[in-house]
């Protein structure tokens, strides 16, 4: 039992990182209704911008964090213009494949600029451990949890309490109607994409600082973990992204402990497959999916 609880604690810490990645994914999907496979690689490019600053100029943590976020936003803007803004809105598959080839492009560009396998990244609170009775948690994980919680609250406030958030929801609900009502849909989409990239940059900084290293494979990892977490919760749902991330983290941690490293990923994919089979809209997205299908069947 004690093992199980400690695993859950570890899982929640990893899950917080997954949740942050899933939040960015879900924000992009919510406003575009299309999937950005290049989300992870854009974060990876940002983290490498931070690494470059760290290695080249021995910059401080704050500058590195800012460089990471800016790098992710710049690459994100490139992806948004090329793969989403420039492609017809009803061609979702074309956008997705386009974001995939741009992923390959980003990965190759980064590998050319940074040819080694791994690069060092400055750690924050790297060795500190917080103890709760018999249980313990790395301080960096605790920081990640806190920042994830703040990010969720900030995002909810942005989407549900501001004028910009109202525009985002309007574009998400019905882009044509939003345009007629005077919303600059292109700008709102671009800004929401930039917000998601900034959030991704923050997540990437925290994850890289926790690991104290970075590889070009980080892009693949971030895309898939974020995607699985988002799909578990349901696409476009903010609470779903958090739930999906934490659930994925906890299940992975327990599978690792009880079944071993080979089986961990297998269990994660089984979880996803089973959830989608029985709830085809994800855990928190089922109601939205059903509502949309009901609306379609009325038309």
């Amino acid at each position, binding site marked *: 039992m004690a093992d199980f609880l400690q695993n859950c604690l570890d899982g929640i810490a990893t899950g917080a990182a997954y949740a942050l990645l899933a939040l960015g994914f879900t924000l992009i999907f919510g406003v575009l209704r299309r*999937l950005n*496979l290049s989300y992870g690689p854009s974060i990876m490019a940002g983290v490498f911008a931070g690494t470059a600053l760290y290695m080249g100029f021995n910059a401080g943590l704050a500058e590195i964090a800012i460089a990471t976020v800016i790098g992710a936003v710049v690459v994100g803007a490139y992806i948004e213009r*090329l*793969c989403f803004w*420039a*492609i*017809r809105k009803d*061609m*979702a*598959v*074309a*956008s*997705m*494949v*386009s974001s*995939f*080839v*741009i*992923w*390959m*492009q980003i*990965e*190759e*560009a980064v590998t*050319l600029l940074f040819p080694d396998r791994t690069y060092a990244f400055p750690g924050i609170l790297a060795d500190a451990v917080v103890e709760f009775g018999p249980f313990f948690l790395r301080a960096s994980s605790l920081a990640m949890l806190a920042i994830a919680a703040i990010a969720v609250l900030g995002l909810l406030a942005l989407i549900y309490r501001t004028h910009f958030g109202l525009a985002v929801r309007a574009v998400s609900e019905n882009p044509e109607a939003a345009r007629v009502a005077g919303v600059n849909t292109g700008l709102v989409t671009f800004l929401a994409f930039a917000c998601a990239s900034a959030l991704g940059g923050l997540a990437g900084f925290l994850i890289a600082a926790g690991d104290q290293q970075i590889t070009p494979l980080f892009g693949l990892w971030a895309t*898939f973990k974020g*995607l*699985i977490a988002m*799909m578990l919760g349901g*696409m476009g749902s903010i609470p779903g992204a958090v739930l999906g991330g934490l659930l994925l983290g906890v299940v992975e941690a327990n599978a690792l402990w009880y079944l071993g490293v*080979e*089986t961990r*990923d*297998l269990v994660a*994919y*089984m979880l*996803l*497959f089973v959830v*989608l*089979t029985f709830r*085809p*809209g*994800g855990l928190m997205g089922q109601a939205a999916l059903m509502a949309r299908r009901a609306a*379609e*069947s009325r038309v």
Partner: protein
Amino acid sequence: MLDDHLIGVLSNMGMISFIALSAYLVLVVGEISFGQQAFFAISAYASGIASAMWGWPFLAAVLWGAAIAGLGGLLLAIPTLRIRGLYFAIATLAFAEMVRLALEIFTYQVEVDGELVGPDGSEGFRDIRYIYEADISAGEFLLVILGLLAVTLAIILWIERTRLGAILRMVGEDPALARLQGVNVNLAKIATVAAAGLVAGIGGALYAHLNTYVEPKIFNVMLGVHGLAYGLIGGLGTAFGPLLGVALDIGVLESTRAFSGYRMIVFGGLVAVLLIVRPRGLLDEAAVYRIRRFLLRKHAGD
């Protein structure tokens, strides 16, 4: 005579074409699959087991592998019937990764001629030596690949011209309308996904026998996403589209080595621009219609 490099490139193109065709079939009925590499993998293993461990002849092993892959398609299609759109894409991705990770722990070996042969988890599956024992040259094997590809392509093109092809396109365009026309949408989807599994399976069986060695990590998600992308680059209007996509990527960019080192930067940029101009690929429905009209007019003029 063709040189070895060219034979290698053409063989690769032929085998990858099966995955591209398989992803294309799923796209025709309106779904996206990130998971066709699973059927490639299933058949590579199943056919390898049949020929290297059970001593089956080559063609029987290929058919067996493809049949098992088709069965895998059926097993994937039934539970995912209610899943649509991007959720379907991710469900197929999860399925394919489950298959790959299961192969990482799958071990089944028997003694053949005093040596242990068979899949050995993440070590892979060595010694699928049929084409060496039967003394088949790379050139002859290329003919086998192209022959099977031609047969598969001919069958798909023929189906596309029939009423069944029109029904499948309708299911992809508008399932609700298809249902109103009395089409059994679920059956059409299940049958197509199973057939797509079979097609990918032929490629997988050929791959295992040409390379004599397979390991689970070859069948990762990149293989499947490339297969999907080829259809979209070449065009979704005809089964020639995926083949054109394969030819452009592997045939022109990878093998000319003109852009080695930064091939993906060039290729990625070109494809991104192509998808802006032609979001359904080079040979999209409109292009196919124009080409067909042009050919018919020429024919009528003779």
